[in-house]
């Protein structure tokens, strides 16, 4: 089965008309139209109206479209949801998510809107943004709070602000939080999306951070500039050597009938269930990146 990849989530302010119809040309896996921090207070309603009309008019193709709504405790959050869902939005990002209750409150609101507009109940999915120490500690409960949650994301800027510290390039102050979010996402079976990297001119630093996030277990990265999209995709796309090795492992495992247990040796290396699972993940990423895999169905 082909899993939907969320390697890149490109942020676009929803108050700029041009972004609403040009952002998909950079081919991110996901676009997040932002109604929250990127939109000035006096443009909140106009930005929401723009996004509603864009959703009704534009075919975004294979790109998964999210809206980052305003927090539900603000004057705008609930109205964002009430306007966007009937317009066709299927994915939304809940900012400043700190507890299971935050998710359940949104779940109740979404269910009410879906019922009122004859939309399949549960079809609108949610990404919960973990942006505070409390959110990090509760991230497992948040990720498991509703079947609507398909991913949790980590937001370093608000996290360091709340913690009363500064964000550094080394990122030591984020290590525990990022690891916790990635681990808890894995336990809950949802995607983990890493925080943005604000210095768009520092390509080297960005690449290091994406590699580090991938190694921690993040499924993807939030991007704030189109130039970051291709860099992330390259890092998350397996090379031909890894793909060939993975095909060999899966074929050998199937031939030896050890996919549900047992051990064999391929090229002098022990192959068991975790190794097979890793090989499947590599092929999944390769297929998601558009690489043709011959002979092995995944």
């Amino acid at each position: 089965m082909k899993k939907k990849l969320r390697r890149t989530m490109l942020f676009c302010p929803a108050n700029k008309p041009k972004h609403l119809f040009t952002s998909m040309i950079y081919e991110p896996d996901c676009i997040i139209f932002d109604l929250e921090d990127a939109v000035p207070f006096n443009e909140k309603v106009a930005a929401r109206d723009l996004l509603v009309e864009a959703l009704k008019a534009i075919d975004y193709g294979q790109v998964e479209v999210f809206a980052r709504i305003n927090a539900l405790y603000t004057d705008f959050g609930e109205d964002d949801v009430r306007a966007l869902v009937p317009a066709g939005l299927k994915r939304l990002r809940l900012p400043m998510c700190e507890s299971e209750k935050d998710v359940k409150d949104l779940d109740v609101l979404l269910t009410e809107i879906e019922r009122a507009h004859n939309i399949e109940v549960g079809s609108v999915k949610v990404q919960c943004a973990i942006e505070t120490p409390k959110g990090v500690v509760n991230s497992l409960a948040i990720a498991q709070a509703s079947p609507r949650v398909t991913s949790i994301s980590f937001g370093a800027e608000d996290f360091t602000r709340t913690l009363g510290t500064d964000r550094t390039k080394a990122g030591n102050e984020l290590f525990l939080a990022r690891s916790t979010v990635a681990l808890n996402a894995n336990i809950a079976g949802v995607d983990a999306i890493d925080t943005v990297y604000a210095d768009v001119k520092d390509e080297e630093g960005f690449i290091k951070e994406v590699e580090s996030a991938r190694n921690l277990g993040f499924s993807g990265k939030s991007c704030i500039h189109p130039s970051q999209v291709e860099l992330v995709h390259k890092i998350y796309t397996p090379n031909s050597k890894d793909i060939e090795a993975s095909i060999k492992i899966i074929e050998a495992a199937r031939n030896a009938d050890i996919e549900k247990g047992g051990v064999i040796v391929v090229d002098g290396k022990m192959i068991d269930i975790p190794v097979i699972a890793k090989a499947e993940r590599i092929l999944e990423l390769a297929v998601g990146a558009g690489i043709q895999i011959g002979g092995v169905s995944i």
Partner: protein
Amino acid sequence: MRAMCGTEDASDVLVSVLLEGRGIVVNLKSKNKPLFGRMIEIAVRETCLEMNIENAIIEVKDFGALDFVIKARTKTAVRAALKQVN
């Protein structure tokens, strides 16, 4: 008092609405008027119809906006005008 929405940026439109007069009057300024003037006016009028607005004087300064942008800006401006009246 007029209610306004939009900007003069490329791909945007500036819409100002005055809920007065009889019927919907659309005054359009656009470099694209010969080509798209009729379409722009239809988008504005359709939005008024959807919002049950029967009387309004609407100034539209277009800077190459797509249909969905014209509708959104009109909707926001009309809503702001209604708020002023109420």
